[in-house]
């Protein structure tokens, strides 16, 4: 069946169950070989990723430090939207994240957070966007954010509480994290690639 093989190799054809991320899609390295493999090279740029878990401060920010460092090294900006605490930048600096590239945006409502996130994603200066959402949000706003992320070069991370997993979300990928001994356990709820299908839990050591 040479005809079908040629057809299946066509880049315009998208196959639902087996589509793996393109090999040359831009990524930010995650710093963990197992996670890099699972994510298809690293944290993908141009995607909206939800990280579901609680409570704040278990190492879910530290998980992203290699990405933030390489983003800052390349001169892109890092936007922190509505984090529950103040970033301690003298602590970020020794990890390789340039302080002057970190921008903190404080908002009062989730609606403003998502709007600001969308605006940042439309600006090519940003490489990573971290946003914290405490409560439920409108799916339409999330979809706007997803569209903005897909057109951008930035990796957009949304931190959401674990109960948000009950609702469907337009995000490209959804990962659930749980604190474990010396690290985090990551479980893929939604995504493309083998990890989402295999239902495996990854243990990522976080220093």
């Amino acid at each position, binding site marked *: 069946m040479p005809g079908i093989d040629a057809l299946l190799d066509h880049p315009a054809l998208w196959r639902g169950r087996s589509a793996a991320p393109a090999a040359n899609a831009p990524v930010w390295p995650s710093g963990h070989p197992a996670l890099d493999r699972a994510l298809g090279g690293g944290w993908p740029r141009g995607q909206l990723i939800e990280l579901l878990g609680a409570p704040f401060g278990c190492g879910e920010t530290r998980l992203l*430090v290699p990405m933030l460092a390489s983003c800052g090294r390349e001169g892109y900006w890092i936007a922190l939207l509505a984090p529950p605490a103040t970033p301690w*930048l003298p602590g970020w600096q020794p*990890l390789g994240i340039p302080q002057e590239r970190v*921008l903190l945006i404080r908002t009062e409502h989730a609606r403003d957070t998502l709007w600001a996130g969308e605006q940042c994603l439309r600006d*090519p200066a940003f490489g990573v966007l971290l946003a914290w959402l405490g409560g439920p949000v409108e799916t339409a706003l999330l979809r706007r954010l997803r569209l903005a992320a897909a057109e951008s070069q930035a990796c957009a991370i949304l931190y959401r509480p674990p109960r948000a997993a009950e609702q469907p979300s337009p995000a490209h990928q959804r990962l659930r994290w749980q604190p474990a001994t010396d690290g985090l356990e990551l479980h893929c709820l939604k995504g493309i690639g083998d990890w989402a299908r295999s239902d495996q839990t990854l243990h990522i050591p976080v220093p």
Partner: protein
Amino acid sequence: MAVELPHLALETLARAEADRSRLTERPLLVVEAGAAPRVHATNRAARRAGARPGMALADALAILDTPELVEHDPQAQTAQIAMLAGVLLQFSDHVHPEPEARRILLEVGRSRRLFGGLATLRERVRETLKGLGFHPRIGVARSPAAARLLATLRNPAIPDDSEALRRTLSPVPLEALPLSAATREGLRAIGLRQLGDLLRLARPELARRHGPELLVLLDRLLGRRTETLPRFDPPPELDLSLRLEHEIHATGALAFPLKRLLRQAEAQLRGLNRSLQGMTLELKHREEHTRITPTRITLERGHPGIRAEDWLPLWQTRLEREALPAPVIGLRLRAARLLDPPAQGASLLAETPGHPPADAQLPAVLARLSARLGEQAIVRLTASGIPRPEAAQDARHDLDAAASPPPPTPAQMICGTALWLEDPQPIPPPLHTHGLGRLEDGWWDRGQDVRRDYAVTRDRQGRRLWLYRCLRSGQWFRQGYWG
């Protein structure tokens, strides 16, 4: 091109005045103060009653029924002329204001092709000034003197070559020329009525009888002798104001007049070849609300630009957050600090995706964010030099590009690489801690020096907490989260 503003005094008044009926219904005189006060300008009601500019004030008061008197303010008029000269810089690089004559001269010979002919250019100048609330008389001719004359006479002709100029000027009565009374009387005595009669006479004879000044005037009128006019040097700041025809009650409706102001600002700045990064908008309220000070809103942007299309959405998002304390009747746009234009185009999102942004530049989106969320929402943290973590970072809200911050101090390095910071919270003593280091600051530090041992521990939920024990009281505090 000569632009004459015969009603400048009244128009200046009308722009500043909220109440239009006050200016039109009752007779109004603009009075020049002095030993013998004279009428400088009159409104239509006063003219109907017979008052004329130039009258002695006593005569005008005799014929008018309780007119309103306003003192003539030459300084305000000069300022208006300078403002208009700045606006007219968009049509020509050589602008020469003549404030005493309420006139602005423009060298438009080089602009005619750009604007599609002199007639079109004249209409655009007229429209521009009308949009600002002024009604000019415009004369166009090859020489400044002839243009002045045509403007005063409201002659719409555009004489293109010297022959046409001669034809246009011939029927002009000699009374209209700026001549001394003696010369005028002498010319009248030999039976000359029009400029054409004068031009037909032999030049040496004229010079002998009436002096060389008359010849100089004729040569200047016909463009045979050049007249040197200094160029207008505009003031290095932006200050535009606009009086509204109707009151505005909602911020959304401010967009239209604001657009006009921004267009003006863009035109003026384009004329100046300057750019700007921030501006202040003042909203003036109605007279009966004089207790209310004008609302002042400042908008800053990450990088300079003048395009009205870029500024308008920013202002709109900014104004959405504003509630008007009273109806708005006037706008004023100011910018004290003008910058050199950026080397590249002034477009908002000029950078192509995929290239990291320039070092010194802040993302353009910040202006939009701070316009909607407020200036306080955008925070950039910089080191303050104080070792205590809760005071070590200063929040900056301005959009100026900052120099790179100093590296963490050794004391901060010892305190560890926690990622998140909180105000210290007292907690019960933890069980297992991993010590980090000791932080002491000086006794001179505002009398609240601290001695702390920093540590990391893990709570029941698996979080790594950043703690310290105050060595004075022995009390443990939570400072933040490790990540």
